Structure formats: C-alpha cells, structure tokens
C-alpha cells in the first residue's frame, strides 16, 4: 500500500511565525503536491514537484515556498504565517496516474 505521511495532524501557530509542514511518501513517486482545502472551495494546488529539487507553482503559491531535497520528502514552508493561511493542508504523491493523499494537517494561525 502507498503510504503518505504528514508531520502533524494539528498545528497552532502565531501570526508572523515561520511554519514547516512536512510530507513523506514511501512509494518512490516522482510527483508530489501540496494543496489547501477550505470549505466550499475544494482543493487548491499550492505547489507541486516532479523531481528532486524541481518545483512548480500551482494556483495559489503566494505566501508559500517548498523544498524537495530528497525524493521521498516534500516540505511546505510558510515564511510568515498569516491568519488567512488557516486551513487544512493536504499532501499527495503520484505516479502518472492516481494521486495518493496524506492524512492532512489542520493549521490554525492565531
């Protein structure tokens, strides 16, 4: 079974803090994705990566950056967290077909 894990299920941070969300997959997938999910808005792609050290902006990259130093790990960074970044963050990995999702991190920024 494909396994995608995320570093935290719940996270509470203060405005202005730097926040790291980590995602690890164990299936040697080349593609990895970060989404945020907000009620009524579905899933919105923040960034994705198709190889180590490679990244592409998604639909809503502003306020975020990413890092992929190893194939299995894809990190999402909020340089200076703001209250409008309170959301559910979902990581996914894929081959050329189905995306497999991690359990999600519910981030609250106070």
């Amino acid at each position: 079974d494909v396994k995608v894990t995320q570093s935290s299920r719940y996270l509470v941070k203060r405005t202005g803090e730097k926040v790291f969300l980590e995602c690890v997959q164990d299936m040697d997938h080349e593609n990895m994705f970060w989404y945020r999910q907000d009620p009524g808005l579905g899933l919105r792609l923040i960034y994705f990566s198709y190889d180590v050290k490679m990244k592409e902006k998604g639909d809503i990259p502003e306020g975020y950056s990413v890092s992929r130093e190893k194939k299995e790990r894809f990190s999402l960074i909020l340089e200076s967290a703001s209250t409008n970044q309170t959301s559910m963050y979902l990581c996914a990995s894929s081959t050329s077909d189905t995306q497999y999702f991690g359990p999600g991190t519910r981030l609250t920024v106070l």
Partner: protein
Amino acid sequence: ELKVEQNPLFLSMQEGKNYTIYCNYSTTSDRLYWYRQDPGKSLESLFVLLSNGAVKQEGRLMASLDTKARLSTLHITAAVHDLSATYFCAVDGGYQLIWGAGTKLIIKP
C-alpha cells in the same frame, strides 16, 4: 482554462434510494478521477476513468465517463449510511488535477 463543476454540492437522501452526482468539465481531457473524503480525514481514491465510455463499479458506486459530453457521473445504488461522505471529481489538466468543489452526501437511516 479547464474548469470542473460538480452538482449537486449537497445531497441529503434516505437509505435505499438511488441517486447520481454529476461532474462536468470545460475542455478536453482523457482522465477523470473520483475521490471520497470522510469528515476530518484525507481523500481516498475511488475510480480512475481513462477513456470515453469507461464504466467502473465498486459495491454500490458506479462511475462512468462520456468524454464527448465532458461529463462523468457517480451513481449510488440503494444508498447506505456508510456512503455518507464528500465526493470529489478531478480532471487531468496536464501537469495537475483540476478539482470540482465536492458533493457532500448525507444518507439518513
């Protein structure tokens, strides 16, 4: 720009009834995905539809794809409470999936 629309966005139904969720998309695509999400949990892949006329079934759920009409349907037969969840369709947009807003399905005993 590829857009994906699901309807209805909310559906409350009785156990034992049949219903269909619709997923329309705006431009040509060869792949369509259905996912399920339980409250507070992540997304689980249900179906991958890869060609026109594709039909896949798993238990009480059946998904179909009509690429000419740019339409996929997720049909629920004789619904049971355990199928209560939010269902998403997503279309292959090239380098990323384009997601519908989701259909929140509540099945009442």
